[in-house]
């Protein structure tokens, strides 16, 4: 059974092989898409297997896929597939226009595969030490993607990314160390002291002081990866400078990986310190993130930075959901993670088309997307509505669930503040994107994609993504519901 998650994680390496072999974006892109599709199928199978029976595990939890892991793996696989589709079209255009040299195209696909594999592998382990290593490896791979378009600002964004990220990840390592230290004296092989299942089972015998400090450091550390305020400073730069499909992967998947790590730590902490401690920590970070996201979104001229701050805000919402806790809170948070991944991916891919067509990221110079590029404009408008939590899209359901959790578990004033911030965010975000989408058409703008392949791979992921969000907004499929409930049980 172990080969299933392992091969799901290794599938995207097909794209890496492609990148090493050929410098033609279309060919490499096709292989990457194939890898992504295989990955999705395998992770869906893994989820089915895990739901049917026991978690898949190996010695010391080095490979460990339970409901939670399967859920995140599925989410990430979806993002990988969508981004692979987008990568083909985006890179084909950039290669044709000469913006990316053949060598850079190869580097992109090679690293893209490593990045995807790293992320998949991270959520398929529950060994805290290995988790750290894999998250760091995935981050290092993604760092290469940020400056790949060759701008100085990209290089600086990449540097800031690597510096802040490394600082955060080292804190996470220190947190892991402290949790390990909290487990000294427990029976069993010390190798198991990093295994999540073991730690949760023996949670009541962990040393509280070390655990408290370890949890806090882990949240701060992995929170840097997630983009929680005040560790988010790298996020707007990195996510806006990277090429759009890579931004989609960063926002849609890597942030979720960090969240996965935090959720594992929450489960351990709740076992010993009670839900109050973790809840307070997460609520503080969550509200800070939503607040900062809201404030910084108000007058953003670079629309990719706008999307990046939206990611910060949504991660804050997830943290708030986890903070509110209980069945509703965790369910809402997990569902929101899925919805946000799909939504943000489609937004960034749409943004990629816009950038290619208009040649700029500044929203005040972009207008009339709806008329010039119909499909792109439509998805931009609808995608914005979706990401802002309007019904009938999925994010409305997840945010509503979190609000219900808040009313049940916490002070209604908190919920009121939360809703107020959501309104502010709606106003700021939608003003920009509607300004871009509506208005008279620019005469010299036309679709950048040549040929059916590029057009299909550019438009398919966004349309599919929107459809999925619409579906999730109206109805949560039974199997998804069961998977979510199983995951929630593991965390509480």
């Amino acid at each position, binding site marked *: 059974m172990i080969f299933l998650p392992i091969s799901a994680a290794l599938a995207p390496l097909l794209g890496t092989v492609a990148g090493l072999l050929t410098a033609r974006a279309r060919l490499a892109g096709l292989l990457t898409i194939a890898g992504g599709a295989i990955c999705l199928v395998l992770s869906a199978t893994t989820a089915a297997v895990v739901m049917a029976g026991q978690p898949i595990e190996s010695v*010391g939890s080095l490979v460990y896929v339970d409901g939670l892991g399967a859920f995140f793996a599925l989410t990430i696989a979806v993002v990988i597939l969508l981004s692979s589709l987008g990568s083909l079209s985006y890179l084909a255009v950039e290669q044709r226009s000469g913006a990316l040299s053949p060598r850079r195209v190869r580097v992109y696909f090679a690293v893209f595969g490593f990045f995807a594999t790293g992320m998949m592998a991270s959520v398929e382990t529950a*060994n805290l*030490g*290995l988790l*750290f*290593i894999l998250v*760091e*490896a995935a981050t*290092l791979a993604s*760092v*290469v993607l940020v*400056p790949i378009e060759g701008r*100085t*600002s990209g*290089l*600086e964004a*990449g*540097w*800031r990314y*690597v*510096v802040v990220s*490394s*600082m955060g990840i*080292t*804190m996470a*390592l*220190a947190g892991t*160390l402290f949790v*390990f*230290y909290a487990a*000294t004296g427990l029976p069993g092989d*010390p*190798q198991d*002291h*990093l295994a999540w299942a073991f730690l949760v089972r023996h949670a009541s015998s962990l040393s509280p*002081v*070390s655990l408290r*400090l370890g949890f806090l450091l882990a949240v701060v550390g992995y929170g840097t990866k997630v983009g929680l305020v005040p560790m988010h400073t790298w996020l*707007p730069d990195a996510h806006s400078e990277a090429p759009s499909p890579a931004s989609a992967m960063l926002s849609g998947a890597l942030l979720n990986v960090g969240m996965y790590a935090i959720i594992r730590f929450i489960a351990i902490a709740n076992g010993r310190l009670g839900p109050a401690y973790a809840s307070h920590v997460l609520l503080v970070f969550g509200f800070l993130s939503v607040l900062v996201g809201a404030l910084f979104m108000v007058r*953003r*001229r*670079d629309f990719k*930075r706008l999307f990046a701050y939206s990611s910060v805000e949504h991660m804050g919402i997830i943290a708030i959901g986890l903070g509110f806790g209980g069945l509703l809170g965790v369910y809402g948070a997990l569902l929101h993670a899925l919805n946000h991944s799909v939504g943000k991916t489609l937004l960034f891919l749409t943004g990629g088309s816009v950038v290619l067509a208009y040649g700029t990221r500044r929203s005040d110079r972009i207008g009339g997307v709806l008329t010039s590029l119909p499909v792109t404009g439509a998805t931009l408008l609808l995608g914005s509505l979706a990401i802002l939590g309007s019904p009938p899209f999925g994010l409305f359901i997840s945010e509503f669930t979190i609000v219900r959790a808040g009313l049940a578990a916490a002070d209604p004033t908190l919920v009121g503040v939360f809703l107020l911030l959501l309104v502010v965010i709606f106003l700021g975000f939608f003003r920009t994107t509607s300004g871009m989408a509506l208005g008279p058409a620019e005469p010299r703008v036309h679709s950048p994609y040549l040929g059916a392949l590029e057009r299909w791979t550019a438009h398919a992921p966004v349309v599919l993504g929107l459809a999925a969000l619409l579906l999730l907004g109206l109805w949560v499929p039974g199997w998804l519901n069961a998977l979510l409930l199983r995951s929630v049980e593991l965390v509480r």
Partner: protein
Amino acid sequence: MEHLSVASPAGIVLSLDAVLILLLALACLGSKLFDRYLTYYGLQSVLLAVAAGTAAFVEKDPALWALAGLTLVLKGIAIPEAARRLLVRRLDLKRDVATIVGPSTSLILGAILAGFAYLVIGPQHLAHGLISASIIPISTAVILIGALAMVVRRHMVAQLLGWLIMENGVFLGGITLTASFPFIVEAGIFFDVVAGFLIMLAMTTGLAESLIPLSDRRRREPT
């Protein structure tokens, strides 16, 4: 290893070693010359290798001896030499003038952070008389001081060194405390550090003409 007494010979060596590592971290914080940063970092890594060697001696674990040797060679010699040749000599770096606060102020902040580390995870919370009681607070203090160095410095090479010091702090905690920390994890961490260093090296070389990021030098368009 956590149960090693602080009064035993190995314990004394380790606590002395740890204090010297802390002092070197502070020395790095208070210095303004790039060459000095690298020297202090190299010395700190050598001391770290000594600590790993002591742990290996106590635990009689060959894997730990290998790790001690790796630390000595890679972090004590190779990384400082590589940084010296590829960064300091090639880019002709002398003084670090791009700091947010001066060396004296950063030293004071560093001392405050060290005190804070002792306050939060101080020996009074931990098992008394064991080696962990003296090493954990120092390891935390070194991590915090490394983080401070990264925050206070704006020059890329200096930030890189701050990160390396942070990793040294974590490593100190990891080896000496939890010598049973699964070896695969420690090796993985080790290679992550090296990989991170190489990537940072590549980026710094790429940005050779302006190693103080634009955003910190002048205001860009308000974003």
